[in-house]
């Protein structure tokens, strides 16, 4: 295989790797390793620049893993990892690979992870930490379960790793899934794939008026959107307003003005995105009814008001700060809209009970992907309809 760059380990032994065995989910080894990883990451000075590394370290510490174990693996000795998990992670996300690896380790697998082609400092920090741990006697054996590679698109490596894996995780979108699936996996192996999805958020203006610091709310929304160029599958494209007409009309403006200030301060506008925004808007005008553009001071934020909510709205979207807005009388207005294409719903000022009710009515498990505003990108083993721990492991039939 050409052009494969092995990032970890330094001396890789394929034979040895393949011969290692799967273990049970949430093994002591895995938990100790991740907890040690968390400690190193928290102490790494470079982490200061990357709040997402702290978030990851927080996720990996022992106390959190113990809590997750209670949810995802309540009965000891009931399951076993599938074997080799092959992870293909998005090229433009820094942290996704790390969470994918954690899912693979905690479900008891050996892991081959294709890292993003783009250079991210965050990835170096995490890989260095893994390297450090691998040099310690207590983790020497466990870290043999990890292979981190980089290779260019259209490489025979995808085909080879696919041919030896027991589970393949493809982090979308549709086109990538389609292309990667052309590489055959063994009959007993499974694919976990993530399709293109549309995310939205709901803001209750009646709660927003009680907020002391509107800037904070804008910051939360910024974290869900601009932080990922509004290009993560969890980033909202549609903003639904609920509440009294009066509160909506006055607080909407305050919300967007605050966001605009933040964007000016923090965001680097990609000139190409402005053409894309204009293009998206014109396509919407041609193909959808009842579209009105809200005047904004510049091209940093584009807002388009919808007078009717139809599923077609998902077809025309844009990144880098393009939002479709809709005013609903209540969240039940969303019912006909919440289809299989929806991924994450950011929620501000809506009680959990209200969401539970809507879930029941629609027979939809929407509530599992309802996240508070600012936390839509937060990782969970329950992702987009997949329980990663269960799907990456098999039951041990010890019942009788």
């Amino acid at each position, binding site marked *: 295989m050409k052009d494969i760059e092995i990032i970890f380990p330094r001396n890789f032994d394929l034979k040895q790797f393949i011969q290692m065995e799967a273990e049970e989910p949430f093994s002591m080894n895995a938990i100790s390793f991740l907890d040690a990883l968390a400690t190193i990451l928290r102490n790494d000075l470079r982490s200061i620049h990357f709040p997402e590394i702290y978030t990851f370290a927080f996720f990996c510490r022992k106390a959190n893993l113990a809590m997750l174990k209670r949810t995802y693996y309540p009965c000891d000795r009931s399951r076993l990892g599938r074997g080799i998990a092959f992870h293909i*992670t*998005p090229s433009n996300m820094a942290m996704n690979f790390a969470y994918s690896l954690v899912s693979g380790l905690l479900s008891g697998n050996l892991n081959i992870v294709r890292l993003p082609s783009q250079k991210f400092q965050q990835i170096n920090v995490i890989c260095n930490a893994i390297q450090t741990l691998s040099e310690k006697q207590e983790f020497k054996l466990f870290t043999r379960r990890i292979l981190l590679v980089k290779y260019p698109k259209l490489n025979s490596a995808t085909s080879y790793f696919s041919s030896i894996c027991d589970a393949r995780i*493809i982090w979308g979108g549709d086109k990538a899934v389609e292309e990667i699936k052309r590489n055959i996996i063994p009959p007993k192996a499974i694919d976990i794939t*993530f399709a293109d999805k549309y995310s939205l958020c709901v803001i209750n203006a009646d709660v927003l008026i009680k907020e002391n610091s509107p800037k904070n709310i804008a910051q939360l929304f910024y974290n869900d959107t601009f932080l990922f160029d509004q290009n993560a599958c969890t980033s909202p494209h549609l903003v639904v307003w609920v509440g009294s007409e009066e509160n909506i009309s006055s607080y909407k403006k305050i919300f967007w003005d605050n966001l605009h200030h933040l964007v000016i301060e923090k965001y680097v506008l990609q000139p190409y995105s*402005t053409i894309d925004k204009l293009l998206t808007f014109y*396509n919407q005008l*041609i193909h959808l009814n009842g579209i009105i553009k809200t005047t904004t*001071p*510049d091209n940093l934020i584009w807002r388009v008001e919808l007078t009717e909510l139809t599923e077609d709205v998902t077809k025309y979207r844009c990144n880098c700060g393009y939002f479709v807005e809709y005013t609903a009388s209540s969240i039940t207005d969303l019912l006909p809209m919440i289809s299989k294409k929806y991924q994450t719903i950011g929620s501000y000022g809506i009680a959990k009970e209200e969401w539970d009710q809507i879930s029941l009515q629609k027979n939809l498990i929407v509530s599992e992907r309802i996240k508070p505003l600012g936390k839509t990108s937060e990782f969970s083993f329950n992702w987009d309809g997949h329980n990663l721990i269960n799907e990456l492991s098999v039951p041990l039939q010890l019942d009788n």
Partner: protein
Amino acid sequence: MNIEEILKIEPYSLDKTTKHELLSSYLSNLTEYHYIHCEPYRKILTQIGFDPKHKYLHTELPFLPAQLFKTNKLISTPNESTVKTLYSSGTSGLTRTHIYLDKENATNQTKVLVKIVSSFLGNKRLPMMIIDSDSIIADRNQLSARAAGVIGFSLLGSKPVYVLNENMKLNIELLNTFLNQHEGERFLVFGFTFMVYQHFYKTLLDLNLRQNLSNAILIHGGGWKKLEREAVSQQGFRNKLKDVCGLQNIHDYYGMAEQAGSIYIQCQFGHYHASVFSDVIIRRAIDFSIAGIGEEGIIQVVSLLPTSYPGHSILTSDKGILRGEDDCPCKRLGKYFTLTGRLKQTELRGCSDSYE
């Protein structure tokens, strides 16, 4: 003024005030025409508050992103049966731009192209060599932008000779015959920039052929993207051609399938010139306001020619800098500018694609 009268004007003869008046009044009417005849266009204009009866300045008229022609059928002529489709390969390679041309529109494009180029070359038709293959112009109802360009330019010379075969190999014999026939004469060479580089320059270099093209005038266009990939600059391209065959009289032009005909030719001072049939407006990305002289921005192009499709005001993905108006040392009137590259769809963060 109607288009027949306008087509009689010399390409670089109108000063700022006269030209702006002409553009504003003509393009306002043209916008109204497309508003009436093209439904998707009308949908857009209605929603953005366009008043078809109002007389706008040409800089105030709406502009469409060029990419809109990839995903929508935009046509303003009632009689579709007379229409030829011009398509461009599209930089992404996935979807192609489709431009619908009726006879009148196509004829005007050709007339303007001839006027613009002859103002650089003189009215006498020169012997002409085309660095392309005549096989690409076989189907005249479905034309690629490249083929349309070749056909348009072929009208500028007498008895054009196509020196590439259908496999894009340089036909050395044909080249030699042409050069022998026209030894000592001025002659015209036309080709797309990348074709000239890849199939003409490189072949001469590889075969170590020392031809003499010092009497030739090269007109080339089609963009620098592929050459940038090979790390060849504009100046590098010129130097290489001079070294390998003495070719020195070289004019690049800036043009696009959406506004064929009204091209922007580079003068001897390296400036691209807007003729009276079209104009450039450089816009700031931050709010699409108009950039000043010397300030880089996104290039908007307007043209008087598009009648069978609403392509008279287009926002390109090219970056450029306006260098001045009416005062280029080459004495041509009108705006002149330089190109600074294409806006790239830079890699965004997010989880859109795990296979790049």
